[in-house]
């Protein structure tokens, strides 16, 4: 895998993708492509398969039909650690069973950057501290993760993902447990990472995120994939997918669209 080919190819491509959970089809065949600088939101009701789709895009699950490529190559062609430097996954919060400092927890994200015998050096620690500052927890390095609130723990997980420094961010409900201010701050942070650094050396970055808030998706996403929970998929530009009829159908609840200061807003009836 040469860095040059990876830098030119789209960050993420899915071709003719279809997913099955047991006997049930979660989504029929569809394709997607994510270029550097773009942000994609996955929307859909509970159990529609958003997490399954995200894990498939992360290469942790084989698609039932079709192929997923990152940087132009299928996952099978990527050594696991190289893939981990290219794409990072924020998983839904899992309970901690052992005490550990916040800094140690963020440094876990440096794993794919270190050799078999490597120890985290001052450079890794600097990256981890910057990541903590980026999520608004600059003074938390010494805290025990077992003492954190749900929202603080979520931000520590986001910091660990930032320390991993992938080009493709795959976020499973990144706003879980976050208060309003930190929801916006988190989405702003990822938008800044994706937009401002589109031309940085080594290639720009992109985000795929599972969201529950349609209005935040309308505000931050360039593309949207809407799963309706019955196998139907809509994929496309934000404005072509975020239509009140499509959303009402998918979520099983009538929604209305308003324009507020030129910004699309969806309100349930």
């Amino acid at each position, binding site marked *: 895998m040469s860095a040059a080919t990876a830098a030119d190819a789209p960050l993420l491509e899915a071709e003719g993708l279809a997913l099955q959970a047991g006997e049930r089809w979660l989504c029929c065949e569809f394709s997607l492509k994510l270029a550097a600088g773009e942000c994609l939101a996955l929307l859909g009701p509970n159990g529609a398969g958003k997490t399954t789709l995200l*894990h498939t895009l*992360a290469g*942790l699950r084989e698609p039932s039909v079709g192929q997923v490529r990152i940087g132009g190559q299928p996952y099978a062609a990527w*050594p*696991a*650690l*190289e*893939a*981990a*430097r290219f*794409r*990072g*996954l924020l*998983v839904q919060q*899992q309970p*901690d*069973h*052992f*005490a*550990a*400092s916040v*800094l*140690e*927890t963020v440094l*876990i*994200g440096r*794993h*794919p950057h*270190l050799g*078999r*015998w*490597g*120890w985290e050096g001052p450079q890794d620690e600097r990256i981890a501290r910057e990541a903590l500052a980026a999520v608004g927890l600059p003074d938390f*390095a*010494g*805290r*025990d993760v*077992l*003492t954190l609130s749900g929202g603080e723990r979520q931000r520590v997980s986001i910091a660990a993902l930032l320390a*991993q420094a992938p080009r493709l961010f795959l976020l499973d409900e990144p706003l879980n447990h976050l208060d309003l201010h930190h929801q916006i701050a988190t989405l702003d942070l990822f938008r800044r990472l994706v937009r401002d650094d589109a031309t940085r050396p080594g290639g720009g970055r992109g985000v795929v995120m599972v969201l529950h808030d349609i209005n935040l998706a309308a505000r931050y996403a360039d593309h949207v994939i809407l799963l309706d929970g019955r196998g139907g998929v809509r994929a496309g530009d934000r404005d072509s997918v975020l239509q009140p009829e499509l959303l009402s159908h998918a979520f099983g609840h009538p929604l209305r669209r308003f324009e507020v200061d030129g910004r699309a807003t969806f309100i349930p009836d």
Partner: protein
Amino acid sequence: MRRPAGRRPGVLIALLLLAAGAFLWALAAGDLPVTLGDALAALGGNGEGTAAAVVRELRLPRAVSAFVCGGLLATAGALMQVLLRNPLADPYILGISGGAAVGALGAISLGAAVFWVDAAAFAGALSAMLLVFGLAHGDGSWTQTRLLLTGVIVAAGCGAAVSMMLALATDTRVLSMLFWLMGDASGAARPWPALAVLALGLAVVLPFARDLNVLARGELNARALGVNVTRLRVALYVLASLLTASAVTLVGSVGFVGLIVPHLVRLAIGNDQRVLLPAAALAGGTLLLLADTAARTVMAPQQLPVGVLTALIGVPVFLFLLARHPR
């Protein structure tokens, strides 16, 4: 905060010194008092007479056995806690010691010689390991809960078999069975293979210690960070089982060390497996060596079961450390 760098070498050096001190005490203490100088001379091969023979042929093998057994159990316990992501896991939780007990008691009830009792214990431990692995892995999925439940059930089955063999055995054999079950370092004359297992086990696992750190945070996360979770788990399971089987065969199912020592070390230096594993091996070995020496000296000539001593030493230390780190 747990700032690693400064304290790590310090803790390991302190543990090494403690271990050396425990060895000196173990060689010098007993019915036949030996001065430290004579004990060291005997070790160097210069000593003459009864004292040197006692040190070289009785106390040294016993001390090494106790140390190796403690080191094996503490390392296996630390590995099991990561494998099952469960702070309550210990080396025996998946039925290894139960399998070993069934093998050993079966051999005793047939009147087998010591060597065959050991061999049967090791074979029983490996059978339990394969049985649990096969049952838990049956359909390809391998969740921690499934593995844990399978292990607990197999352990319960072994417990029933042990009780039955005790009930059916003749009086003299019951005594040697109970002796085996409580664990006893006095009969362990050949600790060197187990020492090799401990050294090899650490040598195999230490290059993967950072992978274990990642795995301890959750399986999905570990896979996304490039860790081959399936292979790592199988390797962990087999390694922890082999370490436990060696310890149980050498000394017996000494309780407590495998559960508590990893926690003691974790409270002192944090949960970085790269330091935790060697530190746990040293601390576990030292704890069992101290306990065994105390067991044969405090009420001499009466010998106490060493498992009682490990609990008496470990419980207060553990409670003290726990109180020092309020959550």
